[in-house]
């Protein structure tokens, strides 16, 4: 009995059907083409139109890229070699790549930024990949001081004296934690402040006179090119996340004043263009500081970029916090976890996971926004491309420089984007 009729209700299957192959048109390349390229009149037109666009783009750019010149000394020489044909003049890169990367950093010291970058990856590794031993985090904690010393140089005792301030804060916390957590937190804030204000300078000077160790000092105005983009971008990224978390928590707080301060900071900074903050950093900040204080321009820019990104970060994280069900807070409370433990162990891991796309979006935006520093006279790659064009040899060259700069930024931004996707996959525990 193989067929059932609507009028006969009772039905028993006597033999089970074996699985069989799908019809030919439902498998293989034919199926793929039909489904993905030609699944209807409109979609067929779209496929053909896309192919046309791709063809035109390749036809325009391809020969220009393939027919490129890499060994000329000037744009005029390039044009002579090309002899009227269309072609790129990448000789400007071979001639000036060191400037685009390092600005006017002394060439004999190029190894220092390169080493700093290599060590940066070593310092980042344990943060990015939890499979690595946790002890490597110690190096991550020390890296900012090593990085600073490699890049700027000067006496080794200066970064050491700054680092000792953090050690003082940690010791104060550990010692006072036995008395009370609140006192310990105050101690952890006050101890380093006192150290930096009264003892660090003297320590630096005495140690430098006893044991003058250090690298040759490089002034900030020698910094430039992609180096400066990386310094500002990476400092901004690594500082804006924790500050953003604190601002987001402050905004959620029940304490009225704390909450209002956070709201005002976030809304004010989000409400003004980054470029005005940068102008404030370069022009106005000096008026507010005591006369005679020298406050490094790169440092001022880092502070402003960090503040700017933190405000965005706070809102991104607030979105993640809002997405968490109330039950998570209640479960944490019911188990007796206090506010900070609940935040650290339950709330933040989940809120940050939800916010990964937004966080990385902000990171990428921040990193690319570092090119705005050209307007306050810092020589980032864009600024240097202007400087290179000012040379009569390379007057009038645009595309090749911008392609090179774009490639530099693309490598880093694409890397961040890929890492965030990897992170999202790794943290996926909902099994939907």
């Amino acid at each position, binding site marked *: 009995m193989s067929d059932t009729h609507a009028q006969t209700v009772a039905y028993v299957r006597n033999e089970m059907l074996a699985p069989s192959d799908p019809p030919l048109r439902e498998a293989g390349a034919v199926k793929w083409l039909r489904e993905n390229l030609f699944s209807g009149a409109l979609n067929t037109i779209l496929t053909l139109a896309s192919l046309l666009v791709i063809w035109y783009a390749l036809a325009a750019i391809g020969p220009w890229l393939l027919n490129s010149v890499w060994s000329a000394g000037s744009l005029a020489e390039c044009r002579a070699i090309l002899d009227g044909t269309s072609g790129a003049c990448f000789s400007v890169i071979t001639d000036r790549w060191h400037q685009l990367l390092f600005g006017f950093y002394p060439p004999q010291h190029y190894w220092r930024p390169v080493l700093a970058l290599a060590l940066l990856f070593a310092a980042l590794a344990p943060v990015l990949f939890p499979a690595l031993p946790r002890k490597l985090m110690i190096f991550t904690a020390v890296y900012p001081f090593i990085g600073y010393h490699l890049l700027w140089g000067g006496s080794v005792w200066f970064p050491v004296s700054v680092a000792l301030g953090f050690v003082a804060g940690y010791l104060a916390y550990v010692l006072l934690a036995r008395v009370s957590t609140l006192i310990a937190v105050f101690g952890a804030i006050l101890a380093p402040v006192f150290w930096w204000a009264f003892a660090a300078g003297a320590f630096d000077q005495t140690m430098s006179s006893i044991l003058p160790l250090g690298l040759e000092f490089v002034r900030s105005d020698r910094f430039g090119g992609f180096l400066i983009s990386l310094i500002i971008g990476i400092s901004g990224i690594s500082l804006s996340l924790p500050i953003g978390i604190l601002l987001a928590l402050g905004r959620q707080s029940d304490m009225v004043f704390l909450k209002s301060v956070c709201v005002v900071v976030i809304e004010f900074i989000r409400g003004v263009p980054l470029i005005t903050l940068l102008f404030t950093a370069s022009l106005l900040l000096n008026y507010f500081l005591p006369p005679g204080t020298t406050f490094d321009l790169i440092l001022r820019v880092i502070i402003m970029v960090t503040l700017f990104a933190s405000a965005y970060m706070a809102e991104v994280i607030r979105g993640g916090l809002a997405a968490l069900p109330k039950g998570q807070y209640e479960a944490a409370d*019911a188990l007796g976890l206090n506010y900070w433990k609940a935040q650290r*162990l339950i709330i933040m891991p989940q809120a940050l996971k939800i916010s990964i796309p937004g966080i990385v979006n902000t990171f990428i935006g921040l990193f690319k926004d570092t090119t705005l520093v050209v307007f306050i006279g810092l020589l980032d790659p864009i600024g240097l491309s202007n400087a290179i064009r000012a040379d009569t040899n390379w007057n009038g060259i645009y595309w090749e420089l911008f392609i090179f700069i774009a490639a530099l930024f693309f490598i880093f931004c694409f890397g961040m984007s890929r890492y965030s996707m990897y992170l999202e996959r790794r943290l996926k525990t909902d099994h939907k």
Partner: protein
Amino acid sequence: MTEIQLDPGIDRKIDTSAMKVTDEVAIQITGMNKWYGSFHVLRDINMTVNRGERIVICGPSGSGKSTLIRCINRLEEHQAGQIIVDGTELSGDLKNIDKVRSEVGMVFQHFNLFPHLTILENCTLAPIWVRKVPKREAEETAMHFLEKVKIPEQANKFPGQLSGGQQQRVAIARSLCMKPRIMLFDEPTSALDPEMIKEVLDTMIALAEEGMTMLCVTHEMGFAQAVANRVIFMDQGQIVEQNEPREFFNNPQSDRTKLFLSQILGH
């Protein structure tokens, strides 16, 4: 009059030998009132829970029964009256709140497991971070309780991979890992499919058999009749009637209780 016999929801016989109500007071609530804004949600609640008691709180939705047990571990704040849990009064004092919370276990309607942690990590988190138990020891305790709720083999999975009934049993195990002296259940089976209700009730009955002090907000009247030593009926934010289960089900006094029972039992 025939006596009402409810299905306790499990197949085995319940061992009542260790279910003993002592004279020691576990929870003392006097003259407690709570408002949500201007809405008077709990009105003049007075109750004493002795150690070893198994109390079922029932009532129509919105009667304040969940709010009442949530006040006992301060998930909700009361505005008047006194709640004393294990000799500690609940007030604004954060130290007292943390102390009470680590003594009182709570199981929620929607389990509220931590989805980013494995089952084992869910169970060891609070002992490690609140009780400062060494990790190894916390894991041993966790495995002991996971075995008790009959899912040790799921220890390394994530909550999202478990069925509702399994998740609720993990939630019970997670609470037990803190070695609480009192357990609160806030409609633990209301979000479960019928066939999973049974496995959760079984776990709760096993807990009662060991003499745990329990307060359950539930509509499982079979469970109430089989396990509870006292049933409290609430309506409009107040305790309307309380009695031992036999009397409560067979001889309800107030009209509100009669109406409620007729609706919920379908008699």
